[in-house]
């Protein structure tokens, strides 16, 4: 299982692997490192503030992590194949609005969800088209497309928030709320279960399928990938679609939990998700990383946020701290990259 999650296409036979550690992928080593950091952070908050371990807070913590994780998974695909997706937050807002808006006009729940998901994939295709076909660098392309998505979201609902209480059927209202806000009898939120299952599915996709391995190949050495007959354009398009799909899933869960949707939702989530992924050990230079890295990174960010909240740290300071963490994580990565180059 751990192997599956790390996404490292290595599987050790038990014999003759004495120096196995030297053979471990860098991403796995980084996962261990950031895993240790996570335990340390978690432990110190637990000791410093008794409220931290309270069940209500733990549930709250997990629910907060949902957004970082799901957007982070999608971004992990983009980062590994050597790109990035700054439009994830906007794409998330767009899908969140789509689903609530469709429910308001009476579209059946599952169809509304499927259409909103398709919308996410569509944003991914558009990103991929801009990057792969028009040849715009990923950073600029998705910086631009995020305005497109947010603009369209604004147009759809005239710039004002919309609420699930305006959905005509009370039954649909309740059903929809269950997705993001509902809990099992163990108090475990459904959204957390969805996040975990989705993570496992993506981990298999990334580490065990052909397209997954092609994503690594493209990010590791694009030229070599092309010369080996890999369809690099298609592979990278796929990664952007995964990112768009993840953003849509996240948008639906968030609007369900908040019982509303607004065009400004998800602002900056893409940066927090990148920070989380890089912190967890996904390389922003492409070629290495795994869903496990993204998960650990999201947990670190979540625990940090939650802990700082408990200590009543001003949210503006939290924003500044998040930015610093992103820069520091990327700097550490760049330093390592320079050294190995």
């Amino acid at each position, binding site marked *: 299982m751990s192997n599956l999650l790390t996404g490292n296409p290595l599987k050790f036979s038990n014999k003759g692997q004495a120096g196995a550690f030297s053979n471990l*992928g860098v991403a796995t080593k980084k996962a261990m490192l950031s895993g240790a950091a996570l335990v340390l952070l978690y432990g110190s908050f637990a000791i410093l503030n008794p409220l931290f371990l309270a069940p209500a807070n733990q549930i709250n913590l997990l629910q907060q992590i949902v957004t970082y994780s799901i957007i982070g998974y999608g971004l992990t695909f983009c980062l590994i194949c050597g790109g990035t997706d700054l439009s994830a937050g906007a794409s998330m807002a767009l899908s969140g609005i789509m689903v609530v808006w469709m429910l308001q006009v009476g579209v059946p729940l599952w169809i509304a969800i499927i259409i909103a998901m398709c919308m996410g994939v569509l944003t991914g295709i558009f990103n991929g088209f801009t990057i792969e076909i028009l040849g715009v660098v990923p950073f600029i392309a998705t910086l631009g497309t995020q305005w497109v998505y947010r603009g369209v979201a604004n147009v759809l609902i005239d710039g004002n928030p919309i609420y699930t209480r305006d959905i005509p059927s009370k039954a649909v209202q309740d059903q929809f709320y269950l997705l993001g806000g509902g809990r099992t009898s163990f108090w475990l939120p459904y959204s957390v279960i969805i996040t975990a299952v989705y993570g496992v599915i993506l981990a298999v996709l990334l580490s065990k399928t052909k397209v997954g391995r*092609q994503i690594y190949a493209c990010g590791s*050495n694009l030229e070599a990938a092309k010369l080996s007959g890999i369809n690099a354009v298609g592979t990278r398009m796929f990664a952007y679609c995964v990112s768009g799909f993840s953003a849509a899933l996240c948008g639906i869960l968030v609007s369900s939990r908040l019982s509303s949707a607004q065009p400004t939702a998800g602002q900056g989530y893409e940066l927090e998700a990148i920070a989380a992924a890089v912190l967890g050990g996904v390389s922003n230079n492409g070629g290495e990383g795994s869903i496990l890295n993204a998960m650990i990174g999201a947990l670190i960010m979540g625990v940090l946020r939650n802990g700082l909240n408990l200590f009543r740290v001003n949210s503006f300071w939290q924003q500044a701290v998040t930015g610093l963490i992103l820069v520091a994580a990327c700097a550490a990565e760049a330093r390592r990259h320079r050294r190995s180059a």
Partner: protein
Amino acid sequence: MSDELFRMEGICKSFPGVKALDNVSFSVNKGEVHGLVGENGAGKSTLMKIMTGVYHADEGEIFIDGKPAKVESTKKAHELGISIIFQELNLCPHLTVADNVFIGRPRMSGPLINDRDMHAEAKKILDELGIDLNSHTMVRSLSVAQQQMVEIAKAISYDSRILVLDEPTATLTEKEISQLFDIIRTLQKKGVGMVYISHRMEELSQICERVSVLRDGQYIGTRTLKEITMNELVNMIVGRALENKFPKYTRRIGDVALEARNIRRRDKFNPSRYKVNVSSLYVRHGEILGVAGLVGAGRTEIMRCIFGADEAESIELYIDGKRVNIRSPGQAITNKVGYVTEDRKRDGLALRLDVLYNINMAHLRPLSKFGFLNDKAGADNAEDYRQKLRIKTPSLRQMTENLSGGNQQKVVLAKWLCNDVRVLIIDEPTRGIDVGAKFEVYELLNRLSDAGVAIIMISSELPEILGMSDRVTVIYEGMVNGELDAKKTTQEEILYLAAGYNLLEDKQALPRNAPAKGGVSV
């Protein structure tokens, strides 16, 4: 020719303005290692690119197993069993050995990748080739030599029967080379035909049966190595006599202008080797020092260390007998050392900016007051050099991109001259420049040396080295492998030294990659 695997006949290929290959024929037999040699630009790479489907021949035919074949793409070449291993390796560093071997077509079971089968199969291929590598290892943690072996395993996994090795030993150590040769011999036994491109004569005689020579795009001939002496081979490679295309000149040589001692820098890709290992190198005022050597011998790297563009592990520099410290190009300029790079388009010119800007680029401080540029002084300075160097441009406002190669080179020279350089390092001064402009560049260099400038000229064109230099230093594997008097030496002598032989030791091969301390100098 019973076992003929592959044959090319009458191959012609032209690029705009150049006939790269003219009626070249070439064949490889089953289980043969066929050497392909020639000077830089002789057409070896073009021929191999036609063979592997990167380029298409204008004329000529290709036969595989005696049957005519069309190699219209690299993919088709793969299908026909032709693979090439470039000097620049093409692997994904973040993936495992097995992943790289089977990249593009991993072993599947259903929708999922079957790692177990894939590693087992990779191991089988590695074992067959006698390569001692764990298929689970990440490629990034392998040495260059090991990565090359992965490339070979990858080629074999495509069932390649014809393998092209483009200077495979350029960055390998002695031990790694003998391992590579073992693998080549294993492949030979399996009936794989190989084309081995190399400049290193000693290697050719070790593993090749036949060798074919190209010169200036012409097919010169194929010889069995047992029946040919090194002398004959070198004659075939060099060919023509030195033509009279250099201005006649006698120089007045003064005192030592720049001396560099103990320059050492490690190989980026293989830190156990020195890329640069020079114990002493000097150039005198009014002298042109020609620096010869094979591509990749480390000539440019040495100069970059001297100029402060790359960090050296150790270096001692003396200018006019005084010890100086040059740690950055800025300090080099302050010490009146200039460097005209090999690739002027990449790192010599701001192509999108005008002639005026480019000429003044390294000379801004004297042209400005209190940090503000004096436009009048700048324009005067540029105009001055335009006339002095006879730069042909409609105006100083012309973008350098639109100038001819020769005039671009003059702009780069002007950039350094207005800094009043006393030592000028110039890397491949006439690359990509037509014959007429070449002569002008040569005259310019002569006028500079007349003015007492010490010039270090790196060149891969032996006639240029012989025609322009006073002394010739030959670099081999980052070391000085001999110094020759340009008036007395021959192209053959230079080529011997460049290939690692030592003239004084009666043409015996040097130990490769001699121990780190003390470079070999003559």
